[in-house]
């Protein structure tokens, strides 16, 4: 921090002690303002994050049905989880989805980002076309895809039907429902693609020029320059994708949530996602203690996965060393 330019030079030279008092006053002013400015964020973290997290941990050890007061039952909720068939179903549905969605989301978004980075005529228009689906609200996209994936009338099966090939019942066949949801979610990946676009565009042109001098072709340039230089963003998106994929809710609720909580979520509960089942327990069956235990298991899994991913960071993520005093 460049304090010296704040006070007239003469003052600093003639009255050193005064200068120290001045900087101390500045420091104090900075501290006070600092805490005032970040106060809302601190309150927000306490009121809407840390507080609720602790409360939820407590609820998870209780029998709690909103109207009643929580009743301590120790680990009973957690012990019940593995015996709950629907719970195990929701775990397997969510895992099946995540295994497909996490890698695909990163690869597809990166590919779209690459396409968007091409220097072609009219690129802004083409970029917009790729991006715009991500603006569509989940409810509206559910309406759209209910038609697009309709086995008889939808355009996704249209070419298969035309060729006389067998076509899947995307939203009716339990085996295809997960794939259908992955497809729907991939359609709205525009934001991730834009962030990839930004990072791809941020790779200094000189690196490519230097590589060209050495006779590198497009493929080697991509693998040895673009990918490493954007690996920090890939890492970030991977983490976001992990966190997001375990929490999928709205699209599953809208398409398969049914009108009442007693209906199965899709044929054979094929769309009974983890958060959907948690939501049903909390707001459908009013088993808040049980739902809190479910939520905490999810939290623990997300945390462990994130930490593990951070551990792998050293192996494949490249960070540029940043210099300079930015405070």
């Amino acid at each position: 921090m460049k304090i010296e330019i704040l006070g007239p030079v003469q003052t600093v030279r003639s009255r050193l002690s005064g200068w120290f008092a001045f900087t101390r006053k500045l420091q104090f002013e900075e501290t006070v303002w600092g805490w005032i400015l970040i106060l809302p964020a601190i309150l927000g973290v306490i009121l809407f994050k840390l507080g609720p997290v602790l409360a939820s941990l407590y609820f998870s050890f209780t029998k709690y049905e909103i109207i009643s007061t929580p009743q301590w039952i120790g680990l009973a909720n957690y012990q019940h989880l593995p015996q709950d068939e629907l719970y195990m179903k929701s775990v397997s549905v969510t895992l099946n989805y995540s295994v497909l969605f996490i890698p695909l989301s990163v690869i597809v978004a990166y590919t779209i980002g690459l396409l968007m980075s091409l220097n072609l005529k009219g690129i802004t228009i083409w970029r917009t076309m790729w991006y715009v689906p991500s603006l569509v609200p989940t409810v509206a996209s559910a309406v759209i895809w209910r038609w697009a994936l309709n086995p008889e009338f939808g355009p996704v099966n249209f070419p298969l039907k035309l060729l006389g090939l067998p076509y899947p019942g995307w939203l009716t066949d339990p085996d295809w429902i997960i794939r259908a949801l992955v497809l729907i979610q991939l359609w709205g990946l525009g934001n991730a693609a834009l962030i990839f676009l930004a990072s791809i565009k941020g790779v200094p042109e000189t690196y490519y020029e230097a590589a060209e001098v050495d006779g590198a072709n497009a493929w080697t340039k991509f693998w040895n320059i673009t990918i490493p230089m954007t690996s920090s963003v890939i890492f970030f998106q991977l983490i976001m994708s992990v966190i997001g994929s375990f929490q999928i809710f709205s699209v599953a609720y809208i398409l398969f949530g049914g009108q009442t909580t007693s209906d199965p979520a899709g044929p054979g509960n094929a769309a009974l996602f983890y958060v959907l089942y948690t939501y049903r327990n909390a707001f459908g069956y009013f088993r808040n203690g049980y739902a809190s235990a479910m939520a905490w298991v999810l939290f623990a899994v997300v945390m462990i996965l994130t930490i593990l991913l951070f551990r792998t960071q050293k192996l494949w993520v490249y960070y540029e060393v940043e210099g300079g005093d930015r405070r």
Partner: protein
Amino acid sequence: MKVTRFFQKSLGYLILVGGGLIMVVPFFWLFSSSLKAPGKIFVYPPQWIPNPVRLQNYVDVFDEVPVLLYFSNTLIITVFSTIGTVLCTILTGYGFARLRFKGRDTVFGILLATLMLPYVVTMIPIYVMFSKLHLVNTFLPLILPNYFGEAFYIFLLRQFFRTIPVELEDAARIDGASRLRIIFQIMVPLAKPAIIVVTIQSVLDNWNAFMQPLIFLSKQRLWTLALGLNSLQHQESGLDLTHLMMVMAVFMVTPVVIIYFLAQKQFIQGIVLTGMKA
């Protein structure tokens, strides 16, 4: 060499344009279906141009669904939430970016760590809290939290503020400008691209929100467009309301698309700038 270049370029165009068209086909169909007669939507082969064009749908929907009510509910929530998010993000983002004091980085670390926190974990206690305050079935549970900042946006703005040269601020401070003046007269104009990104994202988040309204708004008079459209899907009156669902979906999508196109240039630029720095 020239031939391969040409080939590469053509292939690039083909994928870019072809894929782009596939991405927007569902949109086109949505708009076209909103103009179709009931029973003309789920047909094979797909009917791309409505025949006959039925503008009546856009009148009928108002009889069937309280669209204006849903629309104004959604608007109220979106506007007040966005104001809170933007204001709070600017102030806290600046605090984290520019002011040095003990404990700052610890608080910032905790704030970032909350990004990992799934909403289901906090959902029940937050619901309990608002229900104890008798605020369930009001808009406050949806609006209020935005006035305490959103970790990701604070992070975004902090990163952006840090790229603005400190000297600009120091000059203003010599002239005796207060912190708030520095923030709003110097930093905010300079951080415009990032602030636009936060604003648009916040508008989108709130306009499109589904889970929170679902939890907190059970009374129909408080429903948002998203909840209204969702309930239309499950209507069991025996009538085919698909065409009206399409109209509702158009009502939901159009404002966001318009906002996007109006701010497109700054928005993309903002994402590019902040994305690079993040």
